[in-house]
């Protein structure tokens, strides 16, 4: 545990010495700019590897900025029609079988989403890293054959799920290629490894990634981006509780 605290410190020191190292917070801003569009519509697949085999879940999400998102599950048949609405820090879920929308709060937020390695809380996080963390570039590395900056993120607000993160950023495309999320104690909790990227309207996004809850046994959850539409027209009613029932 002590080592884990020292290593980042050493890396930070090392980072200072490297010439032409960009400013961490400025870099973070660029990452957010790349990631967060005014509007986007995503179709994706999630492959969840469990102890008893794998399941694939397809969904379509409408996302507006960093605050609002609406997800509808498309497959498998059992999950079809299940919807989730996130408005700032509130999360509602709807299933056609019960025809009710229930707010997920407290205890339930800690549950995993559809049995994946992601929790509802992971979904609820403010995707704007800039709002949550102070960043410093601590080194360089190569991921997916691209040269990256390695950045160390330290929380600057108290109510954040992960106290620190380490991210690998493509030096020119500003997309994340690898991420590690740490507990306050420095213990590694979750990892994300991107295995394929794609370009949409000049921006780069992860096409395939694997999320993993490190403490848990298992092979992690694969995430595959099927399609991505940027700055699409999304009518406002989508982000309302009424839309859940439609």
């Amino acid at each position, binding site marked *: 545990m002590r080592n884990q605290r020292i290593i980042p410190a050493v890396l930070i020191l090392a980072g200072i010495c490297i010439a032409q190292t960009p400013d961490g917070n400025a870099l973070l801003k660029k990452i957010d700019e790349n990631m967060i569009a005014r509007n986007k519509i995503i179709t994706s697949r999630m492959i969840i590897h469990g102890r008893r085999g794998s399941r694939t879940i397809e969904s379509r999400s409408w996302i507006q900025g960093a605050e609002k998102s609406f997800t509808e599950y498309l497959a498998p048949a059992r999950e079809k029609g299940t919807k989730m609405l996130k408005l700032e820090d509130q999360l509602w879920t709807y299933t056609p079988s019960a025809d009710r929308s229930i707010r997920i709060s407290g205890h339930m937020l*800690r549950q995993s989403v559809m049995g994946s390695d992601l929790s509802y809380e992971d979904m609820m996080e403010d995707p704007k890293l800039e709002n949550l963390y102070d960043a410093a570039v601590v080194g360089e590395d190569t991921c997916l054959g691209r040269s990256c900056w390695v950045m160390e993120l330290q929380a600057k607000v108290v109510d954040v799920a992960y106290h620190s993160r380490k991210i690998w950023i493509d030096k020119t495309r500003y997309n994340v290629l690898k991420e590690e999320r740490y507990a306050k104690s420095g213990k590694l909790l979750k990892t994300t490894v991107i295995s394929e990227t794609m370009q949409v309207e000049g921006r780069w996004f992860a096409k395939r990634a694997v999320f993993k*809850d490190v403490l*848990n046994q298992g092979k992690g959850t694969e995430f595959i981006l099927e399609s991505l539409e940027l700055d699409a027209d999304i009518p406002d009613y989508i982000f309302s509780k009424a839309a859940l029932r439609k």
Partner: protein
Amino acid sequence: MLAFKLAVKNLAGAGLRTWLNAFVLSLAYVVIVWHSGLLEGWNRMARHDMIEWDIGGGEIWFEKYDPYDPFSYQDAHAPVPENWTREVQQGRMTPVLLTTASFYPEGRIQSVLIKGIDPAQSVLKLPADSMRTDEEIVPVMIGKRMADSNHLKKGDYITIRWRDRHGTFDAAEVKIAHIFKANVPTIDNGQIWMPIEQLRQWLKMPGEATYLVLGQNEKPASAEGWTYQGHDRLLAEMDKMIRQKSVGGMILYTLMLLLAMLAIFDTQVFSIFRRQKEIGTQMALGMTRTQVIGLFTIEGAMHGVLAAVMAAVYGIPLLSLQAVRGLKMPEGMDDYGVAVAEKIFPVYSAGLIAGTVVLVMLTTTIVSYWPSRKIAKMKPTDAIRGKLQ
């Protein structure tokens, strides 16, 4: 006095029969005393253990705390009121802070209740001082049942993940510094104990507690938002169970007594049948019917006295041995939520023994009296000739 002397003589004269009756009655004494003593021993032990290990002299709960509702734990914490600072410092009460967390035995995520307690506390018997180590890694202790069900042993490292008061994830590796063996399942199942200061730091709840355990006979001043829970409430479930057991025991005693009474009744009927001449003679010599009935009743009741002596002869060594050695109880009994020691030591109170003697004597007397009433209907003239009536 005459009646008493005669009774002794007659009983001695009956020889083996008297001894057999007395033996059966003595069994009733011993069984009743033993069984009640065992229950009482269990009751005291369970209360004693609960008080020593879990509830102390009572508890003070923060108002939002509801032990049966894990949802309540998230908000069930507040700074320990200032007017108790002195008591806490003097070790007259000790704060406990708790939170739900996840841990990963064998890579499988599992919920656990983390309880923080002061390693220096002396209010509870909980061996919290086993968590005072110089090692940098956080020491924790767990109960034996927890260790068994998760295949953990002393010295193992486990990862715990929790969230602080702001919801930030945190995780740490902790070392099992001690596995304690307590008879009280409520401090064991699904729980990990750790030093309270460390937990307060982890949760960012400095100086806070969920509940406080009081030392014996402590009655601290009340504080807003905190409610006192006395023994009557904290031990209610257990009292209920013990009460049920003792009602069940009553049936046993009743049957045992019935059996002994059958013997006495039989003997009395026989005596009266066989000794009609004697009865007739006594009446002829001027004894009133009541006196004769009294004589026979005392004779029957003397069995009770004899039995008490006999029970004392073999019962006292037997029961004392049990009281010293204890009765081994099986594992798993405490799955039913009530503390059960490995061994139960029966407690035979003076009240229990006196009560049993009174009970047996009373029933014996009644049963002796019952057939003797027949004497009242006898005609002395017929009786003296031994004529069957």
